[in-house]
């Protein structure tokens, strides 16, 4: 693949090019950008989880100092703007399409969650807009709210949308029900478990922000926004919301400070800013306060599940059946319907040869913030379920947890699961073995005994995970309900001086694309990475692209670049052949030099690039001048990163504090471009997994629907001292489904780690289950109520 010896090429731990500007305060985030004559927006939000809006009186607020304009749902309706959409249609068992009401930009007559958008105030300053918001008199008729996931489908529960009876958006199923039932009928052992997958609130470091602008002269709109996929934002805003035609709308996502999925989606605020900019004739800027982020960024996870695993007498898995209720919140967000279905049910086979699986998922609506993809998106929920029930099976059968996994691993590839996915390659025993070695599994008994002498309870927990990345083969996702294709695009522009611009449809919001993508180019063309510019995030510069999520930028985005590089190289060789009067097939390109094979005739990369533009040395009737090539790459399959995480915890029984004593992660990501960045991604992912397992409670009051964990005073984000030093290892099976052999690494840590941690805690405590986050208070309460025998 590579044809260059470079210390900046594939596989080298190159320092991130972008970090100097980030850590010296020279990044350009949306809030850093100010436009001439800019105004500021503030959104008045619903204080009620559910209420009718009887009246909105803006008369006093309109007279407040600095106020430019105030917009409500009526103004949006008068302009006939469409609502926000869900880009994935899921169908129920009975064949009917999912059901939900409209998702207006500003609430029209009903508010459906605390934080729902009621009015937009535009003023000279943010403070003036905020002050004016307090002067708006909204007549609410407060109504009972459906908040509890367990109760929202019950008869008599308050209804979120009239269009979705019993608050049920869809009743989806996947798998082979008759085979599953038959397997359970002959099972020697059935293991059952009930699980809660806690709601999480994303909390990217940079809050969401937007600047909408309208140019009266050209009729063009510009939106700067914190987006992971600016082209998709433009498509939705033009084709569905109808803010402006696509060619008159430029969307720019400049430096973006973290997203974790929450910045995939198209939200009300940026939509309102770009729409209203034309109304007020001035740019409108909005930056979320942290409290608004808590209330209105799409949340993650939030499942209730019951699962049963059938085993034969030898501990071989026969079948899995799962019933999950997944919270979608008050409105369907951009991809929310796909997360608890096609990104969840399809992964329930885990690393195991499971002959039969049947899963039912009810997607339900509640009076809470919308729930959508959050780092891992469906796959953490699937992994948590399968790795918790497998661990429980090990305990109930008395088979060692490593052994029961090994006994059931998929060992031949390709492997067709009963739930759509076709695993292309992997070696699950290899990652398990390596993790067992790093953690010193044999020595665990000794460590447990030593901890006991110090009055501590030590436990060990496994998670042998698989996930699906590289979203995704377009035809495949289209057949499952996606409204878009999930290919990626690239354009490689070689300048006359030989340096290079790569335009990519991927979008970096912390992943380090400016470095890794340049490393690929450096490997292929022999050009140092400081002569390679990665351009992304501007629909006026970059050809259409699908953006960054689902750990797709390496396997899909870089594959598109590789394809464009193939074309560049082919054309450059043709030019070189003319320049050196040789046949194109005799040209060898290595280390940035084009050489005629078997001769000392050669031409360097930069000279070739210049020749391509002077067009003096070749017939331009045969070869067009210039050196610029584009490619669209559509993957042939998902990729399947997999591995083994093992966690050891020590619990202080007096306080209930859990300390992670050791965390081992062995991952198979296929080809690795930059090991330092990959390790950083694994660290960050595990940190988020530890957050979910131990710290982060996304909690609404079940009666009032108020967000109880609406600030960092109550929502516990992981801090450095909550985290151990991670012990990482890698195994490699090269992915056959893309030209670079990459699988993706961005989400694995968050997917794999929560069950390893909970398995370790339940092992330490000798209990079946503990709800996440396993806070000291919950651990202590579990210790108080555990059976006497277990306590000894």
């Amino acid at each position, binding site marked *: 693949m590579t044809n260059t010896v470079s210390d900046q090429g594939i596989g080298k731990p190159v320092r991130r090019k972008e970090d100097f500007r980030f850590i010296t305060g020279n990044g350009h985030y949306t809030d850093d950008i100010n436009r001439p004559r800019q105004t500021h927006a503030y959104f008045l939000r619903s204080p009620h989880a559910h209420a009718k809006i009887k009246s909105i009186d803006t008369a006093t607020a309109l007279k407040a100092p600095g106020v430019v304009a105030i917009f409500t749902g009526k103004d949006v309706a008068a302009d006939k703007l469409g609502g926000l959409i869900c880009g994935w249609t899921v169908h129920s068992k009975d064949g009917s399409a999912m059901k939900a009401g409209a998702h207006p930009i500003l609430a029209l007559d009903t508010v459906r969650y605390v934080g729902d958008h009621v009015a937009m105030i535009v003023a000279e300053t943010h403070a003036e807009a*905020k002050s004016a918001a307090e002067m708006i008199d909204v007549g609410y008729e407060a109504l009972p709210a459906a908040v509890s996931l367990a109760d929202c489908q019950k008869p008599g529960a308050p209804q979120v949308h009239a269009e979705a009876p019993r608050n049920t958006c869809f009743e989806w199923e996947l798998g082979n029900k008759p085979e599953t039932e038959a397997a359970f009928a002959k099972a020697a052992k059935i293991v059952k478990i009930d699980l809660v997958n806690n709601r999480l609130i994303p909390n990217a470091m940079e809050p969401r922000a937007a600047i909408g602008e309208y140019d009266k002269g050209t009729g063009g709109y510009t939106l700067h926004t914190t987006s992971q996929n600016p082209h998709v934002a433009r498509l939705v805003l033009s084709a569905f919301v109808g803010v402006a035609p696509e060619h008159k709308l430029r969307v720019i996502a400049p430096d973006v400070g973290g997203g974790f999925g929450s910045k995939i989606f198209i939200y009300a605020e940026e939509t309102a800013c770009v729409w209203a900019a034309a109304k007020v004739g001035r740019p409108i800027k909005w930056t979320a306060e942290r409290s608004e982020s808590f209330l209105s960024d799409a949340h993650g996870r939030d499942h209730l599940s019951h699962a049963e695993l059938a085993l034969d007498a030898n501990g071989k898995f026969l079948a899995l059946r799962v019933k999950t209720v997944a919270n979608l919140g008050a409105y369907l967000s951009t991809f929310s319907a796909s997360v608890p279905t096609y990104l969840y049910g399809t992964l329930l086979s885990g690393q195991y040869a499971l002959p039969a699986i049947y899963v039912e998922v009810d997607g339900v609506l509640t009076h809470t913030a919308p729930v959508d993809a959050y780092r891992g998106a469906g796959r953490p929920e699937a992994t948590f379920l399968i790795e918790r029930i497998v661990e429980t099976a090990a305990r109930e059968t008395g088979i060692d947890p490593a052994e029961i996994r090994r006994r059931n691993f998929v060992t031949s590839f390709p492997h067709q699961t009963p739930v759509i996915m076709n695993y292309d390659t992997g070696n699950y025993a290899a990652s398990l073995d390596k993790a067992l070695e790093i953690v010193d599994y044999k020595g665990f008994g000794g460590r447990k005994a030593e901890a006991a002498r110090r009055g501590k309870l030590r436990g060990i927990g496994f998670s042998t995970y698989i996930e699906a990345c590289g979203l995704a083969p377009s035809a495949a996702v289209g057949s499952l309900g996606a409204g878009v294709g999930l290919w990626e695009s690239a354009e490689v522009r070689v300048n006359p001086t030989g340096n290079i611009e790569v335009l990519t449809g991927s979008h970096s919001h912390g992943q380090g694309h400016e470095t890794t993508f340049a490393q690929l180019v450096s490997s292929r063309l022999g050009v140092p990475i400081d002569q390679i510019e990665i351009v992304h995030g501007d629909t006026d510069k970059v050809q259409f692209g699908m953006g960054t999520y689902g750990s797709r930028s390496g396997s899909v985005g870089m594959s598109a670049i590789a394809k464009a590089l193939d074309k560049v190289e082919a054309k450059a060789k043709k030019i070189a052949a003319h320049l050196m009067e040789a046949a194109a097939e005799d040209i060898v390109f290595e280390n940035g030099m084009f050489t005629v094979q078997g001769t000392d005739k050669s031409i360097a990369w930069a000279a070739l690039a210049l020749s391509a533009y002077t067009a003096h040395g070749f017939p331009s009737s045969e070869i067009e001048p210039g050196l610029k090539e584009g490619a669209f790459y559509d993957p042939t399959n998902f990729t399947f990163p997999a591995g083994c995480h093992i966690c050891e915890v020590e619990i202080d029984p*007096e*306080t209930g504090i859990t300390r992670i004593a050791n965390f081992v992660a062995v991952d198979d990501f296929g080809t690795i471009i930059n090991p330092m960045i990959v390790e950083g991604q694994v660290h960050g992912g595990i940190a988020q997994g530890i957050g979910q397992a131990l710290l982060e409670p996304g909690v609404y009051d079940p009666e009032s629907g108020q967000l109880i964990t609406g600030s*960092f005073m*109550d929502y516990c984000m992981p801090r450095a001292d909550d985290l151990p030093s991670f012990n990482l290892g890698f195994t490699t099976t090269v992915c056959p489904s893309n030209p670079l052999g990459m699988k993706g690494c961005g989400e694995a840590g968050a997917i794999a780690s929560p069950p390893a941690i909970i398995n370790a805690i339940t092992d330490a405590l000798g209990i079946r289950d503990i709800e996440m986050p396993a806070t000291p*208070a919950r651990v202590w309460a579990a210790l108080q109520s555990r059976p006497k025998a277990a306590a000894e």
Partner: protein
Amino acid sequence: MYQFNYVRPKSLTEAVALLAKADDPKLLAGGQTLIPTLKQRLAMPSDVIDIGGLKELAFIKAEGNAITIGAGTKHYAVATSADVKKHIPALIHLAEGIGDPAVRHMGTIGGSIANNDPAADYPAACVALDAKIHTTKRLIEADEYFKGMFETALEAGEIIKEVTFPHPEKAAYQKFRNPASRYAMVGVFVSKGPWGVRVAVTGAGQNGVFRVKAMEDALTKSWTPDAVAAIKVPAEGLLSDLHGSAEYRAHLITVMAKRAVAAAG
């Protein structure tokens, strides 16, 4: 933040005069509580009187059998004071455990006890060490000063000048932090001195800091961790929330008291 008048008096005398004149004034020292409150529009004072720069309030004096700390002294100064380290090392441990470095370089002891947040650390030290709180009007005994959640004996127009801590024979502070906010969920300060034995608990009580008489009696008989290990504090009257039930907090009081006695030696 709503608008207010901002004034920066040059002396404590001037601050008292300004305080008397304003409609609805607030004193600003380190601003670690007031500034976030203002930013969230949870307070709308007419005047903010900034005494944070008054040098006459920022000092640590070791005299006789006591240490006197000016109300405007920052937590960082207490945490790094050689005099405090020599005579009351437990206060060093307390001060260096407040918030994070940014908080400790801004927040003041006067601000902490004037606000009397139920999760603040200093109230436990004041009560357990039998501290004297000197104001612009009078001397208030710590036992009389803390009146309830965010309530103190301070009257309108009264400013804390300094706090005097008599030297203890033994003292230690142990706290269990709220996992999210890192404020004390339960903080227990134990001491033994001329005043006898005291056990003061912060963070857990619905009415702020309180003493645990049963533990004080037990430690008076035997100053050992075991003496308090079996003493259960009633859950009634303790805070209960997402982070822990009243029963859990009651249990933690015993654990932290035991650990504090062990730390005090």
